[in-house]
């Protein structure tokens, strides 16, 4: 028998037998969650199923992060529906201001080797800790909440080996943009991505979470990082080192594909409108004036991302033609940024800092674009209409690109200001 991939090991542990890629199995779910955009439908589905309960309320979470705090009465009513259901069932409520589901999950709930299902496509962010996190719809998550199980196909794995040292101005964002630009927005559909190599070994959990988060933008079901000493360190910082366990693919595991990326050769990359795989080198896009810069959300909203932006903005003033919106990923990140002066640096430069949540990225509030406006964002998506206006244009880049752009008012190469 050949060895097993990380996905085969995790899924096998959750259905009580050895599994191979391609099999359809029923698995036990460790953690289920929804957010305020998908949760109300989950509650209605639970009622339709006649199962108004959680199998394990202590491992079920309702996150109010998409409209946080609510900008409209309809959404306030959705929030009340979720709060009320959580009170009645004992499900954990993460109310407005606590921040983004996936980042709260990394900080407080996810464990290496867990299976996590979330009614949010970026649930794959949990892969940063080596948890098999995957996004599903409201009804699938309703089933997982009430039964403690879900069905899934064991995915084949693409092993992505990243070696070398990231040059100045280049970050994990550029690794995942490079990968998506290379394999396309459905290049990894139904597959698990697994990231290894010495560049990954040297990478923080925050930087890994950017790659894990955007794995779904290549179609992937999960984006996994084998838990290592960095994972232990991160969990220890969060006060839960006991959650750590080592887990990795066997030497002789079968990978459907191996993809090699040389970090030394990467440059800052930009995903141009209106698809995430429309990736170009920053030197190739020409002059692009912007109206808004968005730093943060579920991708690049952790403290080290804010540090990168602050290091470029410190002592400078943002271009008067640009508004710069910073959205920390979680309450914890926001408070750390307050304590260490990062928030002050960003605000002195002219940025505004919103409550942590999904912010402007989901097109609901806190930075909706005007007709024909252009935004450079660190968020994971640039689809037409994404930020609330179908006539606007969204470019994606790393936090240093965002900060450099904030200073000049046009998409700018951070290497010129670092």
């Amino acid at each position, binding site marked *: 028998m050949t060895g097993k991939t990380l996905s085969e090991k995790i899924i096998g542990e959750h259905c009580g037998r050895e599994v191979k890629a391609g099999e*359809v199995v*029923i698995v036990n779910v460790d953690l289920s969650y929804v957010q305020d*955009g*998908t949760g*109300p*439908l989950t509650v209605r*589905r639970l009622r*339709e*199923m*006649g*199962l108004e309960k959680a199998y394990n309320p202590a491992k079920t979470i309702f996150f109010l992060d*998409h*409209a946080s705090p609510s900008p*409209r009465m*309809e*959404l306030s*009513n*959705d929030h009340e*529906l979720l709060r009320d259901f959580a009170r009645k069932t004992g499900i954990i409520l993460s109310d407005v201001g606590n921040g983004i589901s996936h980042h709260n999950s990394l900080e407080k709930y996810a464990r290496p080797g867990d299976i996590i299902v*979330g*009614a*949010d*496509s970026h*649930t794959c962010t949990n892969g940063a800790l080596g948890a098999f996190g995957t*996004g*599903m*719809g*409201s*009804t*699938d998550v309703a*089933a997982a909440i009430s*039964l403690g*199980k*879900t*069905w899934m*196909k064991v995915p084949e794995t693409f092993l992505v080996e990243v070696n070398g040292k990231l040059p100045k101005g280049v970050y994990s964002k550029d690794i995942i943009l490079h990968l998506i630009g290379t394999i396309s*927005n*459905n290049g990894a*559909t*139904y597959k698990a991505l697994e990231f290894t190599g010495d560049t990954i070994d040297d990478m923080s959990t925050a930087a890994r979470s950017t790659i894990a988060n955007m794995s779904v933008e290549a*179609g992937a*079901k999960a984006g996994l990082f084998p838990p290592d000493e960095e994972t232990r360190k991160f969990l220890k910082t969060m006060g839960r080192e006991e959650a750590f366990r080592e887990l990795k693919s066997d030497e002789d595991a079968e990978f459907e594909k191996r993809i090699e990326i040389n970090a030394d050769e990467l440059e800052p990359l930009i995903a141009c409108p209106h*698809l995430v795989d429309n990736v170009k080198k920053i030197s190739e896009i020409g002059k692009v004036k912007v109206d808004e810069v968005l730093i943060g959300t579920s991708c690049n909203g952790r403290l080290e991302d804010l540090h990168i932006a602050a290091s470029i903005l410190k002592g400078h003033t943002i271009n008067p033609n640009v508004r710069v919106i910073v959205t920390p990923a979680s309450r914890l990140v926001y408070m750390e940024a307050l304590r260490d002066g990062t928030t002050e640096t960003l605000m002195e430069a002219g940025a505004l800092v919103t409550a942590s949540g999904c912010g402007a990225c*989901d*097109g*609901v509030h806190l930075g*909706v674009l005007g007709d024909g406006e252009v935004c450079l964002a660190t968020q994971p*998506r640039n*689809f*037409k*209409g*994404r*930020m*609330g*206006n*179908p006539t606007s244009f969204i470019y994606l880049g790393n936090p240093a690109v965002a900060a450099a752009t904030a200073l000049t008012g046009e998409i700018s190469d951070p290497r010129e200001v670092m």
Partner: protein
Amino acid sequence: MGKAWKFGDSISTDLIAPGRYFHLRSNLPELAKHVLEGARADFAAQVRNGDFVVAGENFGLGSSREHAPTIIKMAGTKAVLAKSFARIFYRNCINIGLPAITCNTDEIDEGDELELDMEKGVVKNKSKGTELEFPPLPPVMNRILQEGGLVAYIKTHKSLEI
């Protein structure tokens, strides 16, 4: 029988159920008035019961919002035909009882009259006099679809066993 509404590649959930109508997610009849608005402004008003959404690669990429296939179904759409689907969208379609059919949609033109035969696994193109075969759904998904979706399935079986 219904007519084909053609769409291109990479139709995202932001085009199907745009974020600017986020506040209508608990009011699906209102949200359905905007279905696919980002891709074709004429679709929601003119689609007829039994029509087909016919698209290229990676239909439904992006968000997990189940509201996207739900309002496609509420608009009267019989099935979505595409060369390929995004994973979460595909699962959501089956869970809500909307057939998602993978086939070579290059063989279908805008306005073609189509008929879906799930048992034989063919899409009949009445306008062209041709038949397009499609592969069967995975058994688990076929059962969920046959029983009308995941809610009905769980109500009947009280479990997920397959």
